[in-house]
């Protein structure tokens, strides 16, 4: 079980929790299980969520592995100039 940290906008979908626990090996699996457990997150995931794994931000790659003990942080997919 990994601790998944949620940024503010996702917390209401998880009943206000800032951290949820999910068993997942990849970003794809993480997203799938989050949608199952917290349907309120679906629109956010559809709009785009970035995943920070030990401080490195992944915006797109589902196959990215979530190493044991890594710090996982969900962030909005940001826009730039």
């Amino acid at each position, binding site marked *: 079980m990994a601790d998944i940290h949620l940024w503010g*906008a996702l917390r209401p979908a998880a009943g206000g929790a800032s951290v949820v626990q999910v068993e997942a090996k990849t970003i794809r699996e993480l997203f799938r299980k989050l949608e199952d457990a917290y349907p309120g997150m679906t629109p956010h995931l559809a709009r785009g969520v970035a995943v*920070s794994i030990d401080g490195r931000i992944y915006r*797109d*790659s589902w196959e990215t592995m979530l190493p044991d003990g890594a710090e996982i942080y969900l962030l*909005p997919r940001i*826009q*730039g100039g």
Partner: protein
Amino acid sequence: MPLDASYHAKSFKSVGTRPLRPDGIDKVTGRAKYGADHNMPGHLVGLILRSPHAHAKIKRIDISKAEKLAGVKAVLTAADLPDLTNGDQGMFDILDNCMARTKVFYDGHAVAAVAAVDMATAKQALKLIKVDYQVLPHVTDVDEAVKPKAPLLHEKCFTEGGESKPKNPSNVAKITEFGHGDVEKGFAEADIVIERNFKTEQTHQGYIEPHACVASVSPDGTGELWVCTQGHFVYRNHCAMLLGMDVSKLRVTSSEIGGGFGGKTHVWMEPVALALSRKANRPVKIVMTREEVFRASGPTSATSIDVKIGIRKDGTITAGKAELRYASGPYLSMWGELGAMTSFACYDLKNVKTRGYEVLVNRPKSAAYRAPSAPMAAFAVESVIDELAKRIGKDPLEVRIQNAAKQGTRSSYGPVYGPIGIGPTLEAARKHPHMKAPLGKNQGRGYACGFWFNFGGQTCTDVNVGPDGTVTLTVGTVDVGGSRASLALCVAEELGIPYDQVKCTVADTGALGHNDMTDGSRGTFSSSMAGIFAARNTIEVLKERAAKMWEIPVSDVAWENGHAKAVGSKYGNLAPLSLKEIAAAAGNTGGPVAGHAEIVADGAGVSFATHICDVEVDPETGRSRVVRYTVIQDAGKAVHPTYVEGQYQGGAAQGIGWALNEEYIYGKDGRLQNPGFLDYRIPVCSDLPMIDTQILEIPNPNHPYGVRGVGETSIVPPIAAIANAVSNAFGVRMTHVPMSPPRVLKALEAAKKTKKA
């Protein structure tokens, strides 16, 4: 193995040199073709009718007279652009912004369009379109818009992300919160707490080239679009969706781009040009006027930010809190959210809490502007840190060094940092000769830090070896400021050949797979990564071909310095094969030699800068002038240092304009009063000093050469650095930018009165 993005220290031959850019001669001879420089056979002139009202219901549009005018070939309203967005709110907003549907939301909002044989006819046709408006009350100020009784833009807008489900609709579309720790406990531990409100006015990217495109749609459903854009693949996808076309049947060619800075990251009038062309069955060219660019493209947010920071006498910041209200135009975006993420990102804070508000106002749809939202947040936070340092009698630079984030710090937006450059830029500032230079009369010195994320994203690149052994590098990221030179340098480096044997071209959408835009400082970062991978794949092919030429196993072939080498004593008498020799034999060894890469370039890292500036304020007129300016920023690895310096200098200059002059001014009627370069004054040559730069190179662990994005961060510190300098010159804290002469004079007068009292 070929797709290993991790950094390996090496000595470079090409990367880090400063060759001439490949598009230089075209650009100094007038040959380079920009958006408005292209014509198609028999193209019509397209013009857009824009709302004179800030907020109104469209009751009826009568186009019948315009349609009957001789020479008019198509007249278009929202009815010709039906909603095909299938529930995608972001795309629907873009569509509604391209052509208003039921309401106009700002002065300049498009309501109809014409295509005619010439400009005079098109202008006449616009006058014949009759729009029946029901004018509604409007709101353009961000603080007014959040009030409970403010005119509502959208009746069904209920704030998302608040503590409780709102009962009433409002103009606050969304609230997003970041942070950790307990800020109230942190403030209790502080010796001094300062809380202030800061305001910044709306500014425009101010690219010199107005939006321009030429569109052609055939009755068979295929189309061509020539356009100035930061991302032609994204424009293709947007246009195809909005027009119901097949993505593959719309070929988009990016022109040379005359500046974008975030303003050319999504479509504005391009779908209208395509729709007009489809209706008229003729090519249509639309070129925005400068006035249209100001009124109806995507400037950045006006903001109002409340900041509260506590500090102990030993210099430790105990807590930071910010409420950031960002005007987003009529549609939900994420500008407040980005302000909330970036505001405290430079610092190592135990207790931090930020809330970003997306506020809807009757102004144009806000778009990204270079490190979007970060400069305003930095202005607020860096101003208060300066003031706190003064109050505890410490050097503001030392306070920043003491509290700077470092590897292992939990960032204010969540994750823990890897290796980062804020500390080194501050240390470099401390040692910089600028810090010791004497200040003249009425001068003050200020510094500020800045943070911005960098992006990676989808990237697709081809390397093709010509029959003579020269190399074509084909990329899909638009070159906004010299990236063709840097990308060719990286591929030359990887192949081990000279820079001048690599020609980099930006391809149209028919030639490559999807590429994300040149935004988020990603152009050189991601396309160089893809280019390096494509070069590595090319080398594998070259080795196979050399093996065939030598009739030896490919496992015995190595690639060194642009040559295939047979490895092993048994091949002692085999001379290395050059790229040219292998290319010449390609027809007999398997055909053309090429390498490709299709990647998601993740791991762009984050970027930091520290700026130092000296400002002279004229106490008689209130005019502030920057007299010396220094930019220190981490580039990871500067591929072409001259163009890295250019990014640093350009961002600083834009920040200086924002700090001192630039602002959108709205009248009580909700109309923009200064939609031109005369009254919206960007810095000119005589306003600025030379801008010194210092490039730090802290390798990005997630790029083969250690490259970080460099394009945006340079605009983040200037507003704060200048505000701090002006404040230091007179001991008056400036909390509202631009610090135009009237505002500075007012602040000086107020300070005099306070002193007397």
